[in-house]
């Protein structure tokens, strides 16, 4: 036998009991050739192009899943930031573009489509302004469209006008989707240093440096990492890091196999593999539980930032060795409502927004899927966005904010979003105001890249 019994059993266990899966096969589609001075023409081109290129995406994903015996959870699409395409028209509201994207997503059968986006880290164009103004209505009136706005970058600094505006946009979106607990906000990400090839939602978009069409694959598997760590209980951190690296390597190799096969069958180039430990609300699929396995009583306890730094780095190192093209975010996600272990830590009082913010200094993304009181002022939300953007811009990394001010709920109440988005308690936000700070507007200059202390 070419493989040992242990190797075969290890792989079977990963799929059967440790919830290893391909989280998403995301097809990136450029819509740059769809722009037109007539919105109607542009929308027709957009719909036709998405339906043409992604026609077989779902079927091919299901075939590969069945043939290889690997669960492939989601098939998704990312498109060129819509502000770039829609602004060729003179329309004053881009909701119709979002509806076209939604319609196309439903026609080809993908569950999310990302790219109702604008990149305004240095400033706005007319189209960026229109798109951002349209977000609350566009996301409230569509089901599968995800939006993102990039408000800062290491080379441009932070656009504080956009930071201020996004506070209001988040509030307005929560208000428009109040009957669903402000669910619309789960489809909106505010980034600093956004990446152009991220396959994960809600922040996926197809960057301008990307090819015409590309296949990116997002992998997950916190349960696999936790199980691997169970076998090295009490060992030194050198052993822990090595164990995570080896496991990440195996997972990523499996993802690369699927990515290359999907690329071949669809006749579309392979872009990148993104190995990110992305939790779901299911038991056994939690990033928070890894912290406990590492020896912390709960995530949020002192040592959590160090644990996350180790985890994130080891995952990246294992992934980079396993695939020639690693991209996206690649690391560990720490959303709250999507992770039953995080939810438990919040309920126990172990985890606060302030600790989460500290942890985002060393991991992928940022303040993610956090439910906050519905009466949180827009300026406070902007303050949180500014803090996250500053962490990303100063540390040369991607950071993101996905906050949900749940209408009518206050600290300690429970909100349920259902499905992969999960549910959780409303977390406390500082009662001290930021409005005079946020009202200044303008730009925070790019940080100096030398004299690092």
């Amino acid at each position, binding site marked *: *036998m*070419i*493989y040992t*019994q242990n*190797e*075969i*059993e*290890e*792989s*079977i266990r990963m*799929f*059967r009991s440790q919830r290893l899966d391909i989280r998403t096969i995301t097809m990136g589609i450029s819509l740059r050739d769809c722009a037109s001075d007539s919105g109607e023409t542009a929308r027709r081109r957009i719909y036709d192009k998405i339906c043409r290129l992604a026609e077989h995406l779902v079927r091919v994903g299901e075939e590969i899943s*069945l*043939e*290889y*015996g*690997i669960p492939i959870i989601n098939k998704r699409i990312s498109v060129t930031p819509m502000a770039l395409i829609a602004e060729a028209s003179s329309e004053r509201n881009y909701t119709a573009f979002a509806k076209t994207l939604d319609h196309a997503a439903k026609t080809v059968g993908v569950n999310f489509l990302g790219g109702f986006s604008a990149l305004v880290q240095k400033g706005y164009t007319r189209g960026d302004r229109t798109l951002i103004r349209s977000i609350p209505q566009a996301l409230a009136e569509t089901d599968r469209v995800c939006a993102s706005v990039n408000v800062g970058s290491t080379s441009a600094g932070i656009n504080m006008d956009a930071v201020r505006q996004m506070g209001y946009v988040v509030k307005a979106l929560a208000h428009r989707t109040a009957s669903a607990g402000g669910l619309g906000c789960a489809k909106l990400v505010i980034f600093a240093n956004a990446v152009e090839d991220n396959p994960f939602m809600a922040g996926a978009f197809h960057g301008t440096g990307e090819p015409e069409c590309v296949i990116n694959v997002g992998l997950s598997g916190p349960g696999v990492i936790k199980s691997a760590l169970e076998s090295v209980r009490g060992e030194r951190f050198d052993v822990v890091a090595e164990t995570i690296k080896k496991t990440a390597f*195996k*997972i990523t*190799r*499996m993802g*690369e*196999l699927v990515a290359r096969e999907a690329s071949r069958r669809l006749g579309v180039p392979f872009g990148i593999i993104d190995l990110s430990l992305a939790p779901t609300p299911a038991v056994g699929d939690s990033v928070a539980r890894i912290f406990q396995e590492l020896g912390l009583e709960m995530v949020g306890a002192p040592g959590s930032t160090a644990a996350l730094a180790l985890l994130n780095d080891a995952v990246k190192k294992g992934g980079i060795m396993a695939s020639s093209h690693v991209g996206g975010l690649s690391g560990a996600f720490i959303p709250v409502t999507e992770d039953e272990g995080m939810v438990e830590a919040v309920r126990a009082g172990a985890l606060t927004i302030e600790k989460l913010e500290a942890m985002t200094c060393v991991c992928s993304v940022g303040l993610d899927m956090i439910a906050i009181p519905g009466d949180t002022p827009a300026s406070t939300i902007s303050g949180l966005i500014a803090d996250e953007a500053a962490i990303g811009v100063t540390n040369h990394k991607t950071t993101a904010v996905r906050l949900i001010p749940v209408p009518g709920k206050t600290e300690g109440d429970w909100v349920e979003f259902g499905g992969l988005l999960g549910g959780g308690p409303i977390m406390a936000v500082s009662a001290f105001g930021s409005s005079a700070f946020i009202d200044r507007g303008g730009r925070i200059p790019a940080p100096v890249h030398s004299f690092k202390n």
Partner: protein
Amino acid sequence: MDAIVTVVGKDQVGIIAGVTHELSQAGINILTISQTILDEYFTMIMKVDLGGMILARQELNARLEYAGQRLGVQITLIHEEVLKAMHRI
């Protein structure tokens, strides 16, 4: 296209016969078999060739699932490429 079939469960008469019968009915050729019994637990690992398979994968999965229930064992089929990717550089 090769795959690895594992069969694990409490030993009883007819496990190999039952599993290989299902495979032959599906047009699947067995390339190698290794089988052990440890503390009454039966473990078999087979390398098979799916090239001549006359069933759809879904149908094969359903039949193996049913045969596993009948024989009191867990039957898993995993694509060899997956193992190669994960365990060989």
